[in-house]
């Protein structure tokens, strides 16, 4: 009987330590994430202009989209389309990479939703964000 109590106690300690280790941080310091971050950072210096004039907005699914093509002069429309496509490619890769780096590829959707909310919440005043299917100026 004494052994049983000891065993149960050991099991309890094991469970507590397992539960404590379950509260892991989200790993974002992998080479893949760092590279994507840097690529998005350099692109942002070009994209910021189009966030500011409303040509490009933040979508509710964690990406960016060309919202108002008329805000872009004809000459640079091709450039904006390229920027938006490249940015979305990086963003999708970022969500996949974070999920993969944390050994939970199935978290990708959750990570994308979390990012979508945070991008929109932290957007600067004057930028356009998508909310419930319609565009809204912050």
């Amino acid at each position, binding site marked *: 009987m004494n052994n*049983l109590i000891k*065993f149960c106690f050991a*099991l309890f300690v*094991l*469970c507590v330590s*397992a*539960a404590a280790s*379950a*509260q*892991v*941080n*989200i790993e*974002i310091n992998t080479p893949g*994430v760092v590279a994507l*971050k840097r690529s*998005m*950072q350099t692109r*942002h210096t070009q994209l910021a202009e189009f966030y500011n004039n409303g040509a490009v907005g933040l979508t509710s699914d964690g990406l960016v989209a060309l919202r108002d093509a008329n805000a872009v002069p004809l000459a640079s429309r091709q450039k904006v389309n390229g920027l938006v496509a490249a940015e979305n490619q990086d963003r999708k890769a*970022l969500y996949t990479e*974070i999920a993969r780096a944390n050994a*939970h590829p199935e*978290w990708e959707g*959750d*990570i994308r939703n*979390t*990012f979508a*909310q*945070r*991008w929109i919440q*932290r957007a600067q005043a004057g930028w356009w964000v998508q909310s419930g299917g319609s565009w809204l100026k912050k």
Partner: protein
Amino acid sequence: MKKIWTVLPLAVIALSACVTINIYFPAAEAEKAADKIIDEVWQIEKSGTVSKSDKSSSVAPEIKMEKPI
């Protein structure tokens, strides 16, 4: 010795219950991680600490208390 056949299945159930904790998505942690990345991508700097340090320099000098003998 027969006791082990009752304890062992219980142990397995308890352990598996612990492991299942791990599959829940840590939303709060993810939000923090997202904010960190957004800060870097958008190069948002935290401001508001400059004015505080200026004020601290103009604090009146401390008055030294002498111990009664």
